[in-house]
């Protein structure tokens, strides 16, 4: 059964079409990656799924029920972890979770039990009386998650839940997402970190200009890309790097420099590795390593949208 079914979804703001006749199915029990650059239409889609925005056209079904006709049912069964922290600084961790859980009708002993359960789940069980102002970025993110899951929603929408946090907290959150999934929740996960999506998502959709342009498992998506390869050249990063001269080489479609590595996308059919190395030597770059990468999601995304995920 589909946890979420979107048919012909369209949202217009005046003449601007933010979401354009989108069709999407998220199966029950999936961790579904929803990828798109800024302005691609994924936030608008999420807002419509969570009933915060009215659709211009189209239907959204949650667990087989149309959400426009069953708003309360939809809201009771969705938990949203927004990208920006949505917690009260003047309430302690317990009060925050308890308040949001209370909005879903939980009261008394059940409310207490679910609040403690959610806090324990995100590893803040011993910080119940602490206020968010005393929390690290990672702890605030975890509290943000606890507020969304205490009412045990069937579908959890996580929008960039790991932005700006330390690797340890990020790892904790990723493990928590997997655990929530194992416990029966369907999860829609958006992130700018492609490696996170690769690690946890069972299926992925790439959205661009309000449309789903690719959908499938990561393996299926990677097979879409047969005409692009990625070459990584490790260099000693001193002075200005000759990125522009590399872009002039036949077959090269994009070049970027990240953490001591020049990442070059090039057409598969053009054998240009020698020319790339020669150009780097000519530009007096100190080459430390050269390797050709197997196609990854980042390459897929770049090839399909012409943009980096973080653009």
């Amino acid at each position, binding site marked *: 059964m589909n946890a979420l079914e979107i048919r012909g979804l369209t949202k217009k703001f005046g003449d601007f079409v933010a979401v354009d006749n989108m069709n999407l199915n998220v199966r029950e029990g999936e961790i579904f990656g929803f990828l798109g650059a800024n302005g691609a239409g994924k936030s608008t889609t*999420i*807002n419509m799924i969570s009933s*915060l925005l009215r659709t211009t056209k189209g239907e959204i079904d949650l667990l087989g029920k149309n959400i426009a006709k069953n708003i309360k049912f939809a*809201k009771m069964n969705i938990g*949203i972890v*927004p990208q920006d*922290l*949505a917690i009260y600084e003047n309430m302690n961790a317990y009060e925050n979770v308890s*308040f949001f859980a209370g909005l879903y*009708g939980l009261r008394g002993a059940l409310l207490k039990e679910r609040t403690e359960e959610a806090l324990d789940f995100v590893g803040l069980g011993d910080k119940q009386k602490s206020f968010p102002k005393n929390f690290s970025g990672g702890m605030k993110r975890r509290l943000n998650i606890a507020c969304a899951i205490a009412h045990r929603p069937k579908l959890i929408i996580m929008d960039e839940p790991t932005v700006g946090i330390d690797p340890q907290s990020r790892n904790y959150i990723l493990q928590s997402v997997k655990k929530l999934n194992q416990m029966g929740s369907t999860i829609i996960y958006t992130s700018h970190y492609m490696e996170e999506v690769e690690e946890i998502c069972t299926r992925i959709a790439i959205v661009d200009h309000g449309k789903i342009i690719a959908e499938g498992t990561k393996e299926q998506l990677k097979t879409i890309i047969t005409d692009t390869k990625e070459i990584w050249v490790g260099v000693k990063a001193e002075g200005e790097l000759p990125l522009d001269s590399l872009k002039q080489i036949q077959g090269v479609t994009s070049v970027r420099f990240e953490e001591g590595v020049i990442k070059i996308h090039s057409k598969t059919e053009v054998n240009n590795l020698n020319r790339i190395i020669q150009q780097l030597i000519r530009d007096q770059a100190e080459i430390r390593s050269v390797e050709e990468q197997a196609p990854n999601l980042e390459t897929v995304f770049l090839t399909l949208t012409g943009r980096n995920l973080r653009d």
Partner: protein
Amino acid sequence: MKDFLWLVRKTMKNTFGRRNSWLLYIGLPLAGVLLSMLFYSNMSSGSLKIGIVNQDGDQAITQDAIQFVGSLNQVKLTMTDEASLNDEITSGKLDSGIVLPKGFADSIREGKPLPVNIVSVKGAQVTAYVKSLLDNYIGNIASIGLGTKGDTQAFDQVYAAYKQPGFAFESETLKDTSNRKDMTYQSIGFLVSFMMFSAVGLTEIILKEKENRTFLRLLSSPISARAYVLSNVAVSFLVLLFQSFMTLVFMKYVFHIDSGIPFGEMYAVLALFSLAAISLALLIVSLAKNTNAAGALQNLIITPSCLLAGCFFPISIMPDTVKKISNFMPQHWLLDTIDKLQNGTAFGSLGINFFILLAFAAVFALIAIFRFSRNNDVRQFI
């Protein structure tokens, strides 16, 4: 309903969990009442210090006139001379001076009294009371002079009879309630402005929730935007009711300001005004994009309208144009209602005032609802 109460409870807890809120919502109105009390207690009239310059010697009529002035209520008499009079008036030792000219007694006997010069730097506020009574006194005796036509013996007889009235005269001093009325008016004026600022402060929570991203998180729960805004209105109403109640209790039982209006009637009028204040606050919040803008709008709307409506100064001293403008402000209609109640108008006869206050509340609320419904901005959330 349970969700609504859940939200009300949370907002009340958040609001009154902070000590500053108590100071803001309860302390400041009481400080306003105290300020008004101090202001009006300084204005309470003491004795009128009058200096007499007698240039007419020991004439019986002149001495009687001096005695008459001295016998007036709230008058403290000092004999002085012409040279010192001006200095004593300008230095504030005297409020005014009366110069009884030479030949004063004789002129009265003849029925043609010489003019009495009354000197003051404080104007009619100080001289009018004494002047009118003294003129009346002199006029009466001069009438005897006119009637006796220069017959000294006849004058003395009639004058002696005039001084010995054949009836007993008792005087009772009535309590001057004008000060009490002014003090109530001003205290309520201050309370009104604090109520309006409080209403905006509480309604602004909606904007704060938007800025903190919690607003749309709330809306993604089964709580509707309508229920959320209603819960905020309920909290504002409860706080304003509590604020008015505490202020009235303190006015009556601690500061002993008797407004002359039954507690229940005064409280009902303030409760009605609370609705108008909350609706205006909703309108301000619906027009503002953030708390800074709301703060600016609040200063732009509330302070000037309170000034024009007479919350800080009595409307009676304002020019006619301002009086006309004040008709468009709910504060004016509250103060007008209180003024009428103090002047003895029955509570049940003030339907038009209550209707106007309700109309203000309805109009502001409707515009705010329209503005809220047009706001489709969820970009701040996800």
